């Protein structure tokens, strides 16, 4: 009980919790779940954009995109490492992902249909991710907070690159401008869904906020994202596909239309356009690589034996 009181005091005082510190089981489990889902999202997130590496229409864009997808693999690695400091096992987390027992961000269950999607993902999806993640740089668990600092630093770079691609395309041909608008139309609502269900229906928010794992509610972050994005859309010259979107001077925020929560839950529960494909791709890579990982382990074991 004293340990628990001490823990509550530490997090309430905004101190960091470190791997060897005592922590309640619920805190540990919540973090492992959240960090693992985050890591899985980075890894699954390699696929929609990876879809365009081979076809990127300039060498500069190809290099930027390949570097970005590589960064996502790197983020997955830091995050799995952070989860391991809580006693989780990366191999087991990977099994949870490929066997569909653990989730990842639903945004990656949508297809990337044109090269403009690469830019829009950078702008909107990375933009939403940054809104979600910047507060996590101050989250109570030290290794997660530190991993998030690196992740956010790189995500902000990706967002800028995405926006810059769209700016360039908007200055291009009419066909390019149409392509950008079409991509914005497809990604806008799923991006808003990235913040999760409305606060009233968010099961984990309250406890997570008390433990300082989470620092803002889903709806607060969503509002912040909308407010940030509207002027960017204007500068870009695209229309966000929401007739209800309007500045509300009284609130000092933008009002926006109702999110299709039925679609949100459908995709979360596995029936989005690409859920099956994304997991199957990951599972295939994992299975195809099994003999390589076994070989590396066998070789390391032989080396150790010889060293003795």
């Amino acid at each position, binding site marked *: 009980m004293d340990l628990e009181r001490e823990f509550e005091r530490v997090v309430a005082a905004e101190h960091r919790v470190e791997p060897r510190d005592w922590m309640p089981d619920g805190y540990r489990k919540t973090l492992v779940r959240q960090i693992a889902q985050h890591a899985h999202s980075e890894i699954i997130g390699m696929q929609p954009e990876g879809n365009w590496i081979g076809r990127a229409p300039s*060498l500069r864009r190809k*290099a930027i995109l390949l*570097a970005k997808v590589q960064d996502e*693999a790197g983020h997955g690695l830091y995050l799995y490492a952070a989860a391991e400091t809580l006693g989780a096992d990366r191999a087991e987390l990977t099994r949870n992902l490929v066997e569909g027992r653990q989730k990842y961000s639903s945004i990656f269950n949508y297809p990337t249909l044109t090269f403009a999607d690469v830019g829009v993902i950078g702008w909107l999806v990375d933009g939403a991710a940054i809104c979600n993640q910047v507060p996590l740089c101050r989250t109570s668990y030290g290794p997660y907070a530190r991993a998030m600092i690196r992740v956010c630093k790189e995500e*902000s770079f990706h967002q800028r690159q995405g926006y810059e691609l769209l700016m*360039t395309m908007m200055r291009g041909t009419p066909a390019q401008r149409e392509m950008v608008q079409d991509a914005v139309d497809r990604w806008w609502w799923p991006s808003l869904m990235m913040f999760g269900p409305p606060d009233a229906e968010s099961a984990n928010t309250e406890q997570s906020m008390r433990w300082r794992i989470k620092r803002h509610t889903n709806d607060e972050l969503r509002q912040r994202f909308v407010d940030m994005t509207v002027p960017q859309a204007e500068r870009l010259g695209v229309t966000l596909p929401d007739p209800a979107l309007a500045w509300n001077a009284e609130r000092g925020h933008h009002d926006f239309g109702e999110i299709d929560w039925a679609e949100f839950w459908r995709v979360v529960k596995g029936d989005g356009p690409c859920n099956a494909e994304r997991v199957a791709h990951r599972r295939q890579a994992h299975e195809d690589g099994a003999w*390589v990982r076994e070989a590396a382990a066998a070789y390391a074991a032989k080396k150790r034996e010889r060293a003795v």
Partner: protein
Amino acid sequence: MDNAYEALADEGEEKHWAFGTGFTAALTGVDRALPAGVERADLVVYCLMLGDDALIHAQRLAEWCSRAPELEEDVALANIALDLLGQARLLLSRAAEVEDAGRDEDALAYLRDEREFRNVRLVEIDCGPGPGGDFATTIARLLVFSSWRLAVFQRLTASADPVLAAVAAKGIKELAYHRDHAAQWVLRLAGGTDYSRERMIAGLTQVWAYTDELFTTHPVETALGGVAVDPADVRAEVAEVLDTVLSAAELDRPEVTQVAALAGRAGRDGVHTQALGHLLAELQHVARSMPGAVW
């Protein structure tokens, strides 16, 4: 809004750029004039040869992205592909600049047809993750390619073309890492399980059939004495490197018949395998289907 970057930026850097603004372009300050006594057309072709090798190999390596056996390898192969893509961009830009016909790196990469590509066939064949190979075949190709290119680039640092010399000086550090990475995997796969050893031998055998072409002197290389490296000169050195790796892995050098050239002509002359057309179809599709677009 929280600004996570403030604590991260180095002293004096702009806080809204997460990595600061302290980049310098590659090859800043290098003399870019055409060296005396050099035939413009020959230097263009030579830059295309070295540039296309890097571009096509990068395109193949990038196919692994999100499909590698482990995440660390996704990162490593992407890294190697990025290094090669960087080399390709410098070399194609140099080709465009020497050619002086209003083309740039993208016009050369995206708007040339199959017969105009000058890469060796080794880099274009499917070595996995496609059905034509697997991780071991990819590693076998990377070992051979990086050992050869490193030897060529080491000599190229003394090129009479300051741009090629600078590209080579930058590239050798990268290629040494690529070669080391491949060699480590050859040891692991050859010394891991029976199955991985079998795959490694099969992979080496598959790529070995394309190795003679690497050491065949092209007339352009002869014409560019002092500027280009004669690949025949590095044959012994590369063989020694490969033998060292193979013997550490307790493997024999594959004994295979070389894939024939067509009336003496192969990749360097724009005569390729059937694989290149498909690879270029993917690489060039978007760029070609939107004429006048800017990216």
